[in-house]
């Protein structure tokens, strides 16, 4: 594997890249059906395959994309979509702040380019690897920058197939969002504090939806849930890490 012209290189780039590919492969396989679902739901909302694919290329953040689609109406509520995206992706700020100091061999340009591909999955894999060895650009770009190929191609395929499915409610596909979100929410479960956040957000959101209609239920639910987590967390000691 060692390149003969670089015998003194401290890092085996090919091996780092292979490790990244090996780590991200199961995630790429798991992302494909989710991407198909996202594309099909895009078609149900009236987005073209080009628009759906463009969103998966440029935003490349599943949770925020599904949330945007759920909030999508015509005319497009740009401010609501932007605000929802900010709230859901704010966690990237902490993830980046945690990972960036472990990227010692990276130039600033490599960090700025590499973090375009930051996802929950690539972050978790990189954090795990950084525990016992140096994080290399070869590993990061393999583990992070391959996932879009699966996500984007499955989005476009789903959007093309979805336009032939007809009314999504007929096969219960309109509920797929809700079921997907419940599955994602379960991934953030960490006991009492998350229970408080989830319960408070659900009640505040539904009540606000009844009283004022969309889009205010998102901000009202989110802020109430965040406040509930603050109140429910123990004072002075570190809260348990989210999984």
């Amino acid at each position, binding site marked *: 594997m060692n390149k003969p012209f670089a015998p003194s290189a401290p890092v085996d780039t090919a091996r780092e890249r292979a490790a990244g590919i090996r780590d991200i492969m199961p995630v790429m396989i798991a992302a494909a*059906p989710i991407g198909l679902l996202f594309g099909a739901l895009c078609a149900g909302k009236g987005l073209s395959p*080009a628009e759906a694919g463009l969103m998966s290329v440029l935003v490349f953040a599943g949770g925020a994309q599904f949330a945007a689609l759920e909030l999508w109406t015509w005319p497009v509520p740009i401010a609501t979509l932007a605000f929802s995206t900010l709230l*859901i992706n704010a966690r990237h700020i902490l993830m980046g702040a945690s990972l*960036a100091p472990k990227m010692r061999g990276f130039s600033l340009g490599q960090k700025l380019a590499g973090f375009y591909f930051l996802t929950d999955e690539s972050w978790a894999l990189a954090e795990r690897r950084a525990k016992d060895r140096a994080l290399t650009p070869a590993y990061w770009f393999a583990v992070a920058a391959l996932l879009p190929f699966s996500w984007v191609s499955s989005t476009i395929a789903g959007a093309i197939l979805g336009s032939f499915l007809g009314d999504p409610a007929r096969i219960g596909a309109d509920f797929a969002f809700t*079921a997907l979100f419940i599955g994602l929410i379960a991934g*953030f479960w960490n006991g009492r504090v998350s229970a408080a956040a989830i319960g408070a957000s659900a009640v505040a959101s539904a009540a606000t939806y009844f009283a004022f209609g969309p889009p205010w239920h998102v901000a009202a639910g989110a802020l109430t849930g965040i406040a509930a987590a603050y109140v429910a967390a123990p004072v002075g000691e570190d809260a348990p890490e989210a999984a």
Partner: protein
Amino acid sequence: MTIDPTTLTAILAMALITYLTRIAGIFLVGRLALSGRAKAAFDAIPPAVLVAVIAPTALATGWPETLAALVTAVAATRLPLLATIAVGVASVVLLRMVAG
């Protein structure tokens, strides 16, 4: 293969905001040490937002949707994501048939 200008604007706004959240951490290293309640509140943002988005569908549509959401939540504690979605979709179809 059309791209609507308003849709494009929305996608670009979402993309810009997402990229800024991704790179912000690079410039906040050492300055962002959340702990205790502030950390708990920050960690709660994703689930709180996701719940807020689906609460009207889950709680304010009808009893089939509410019951299906409960079934899905139970499934989510023991099944992988795609199986959870399958359970949710199947249960809502069945419950809507029962509801007529």
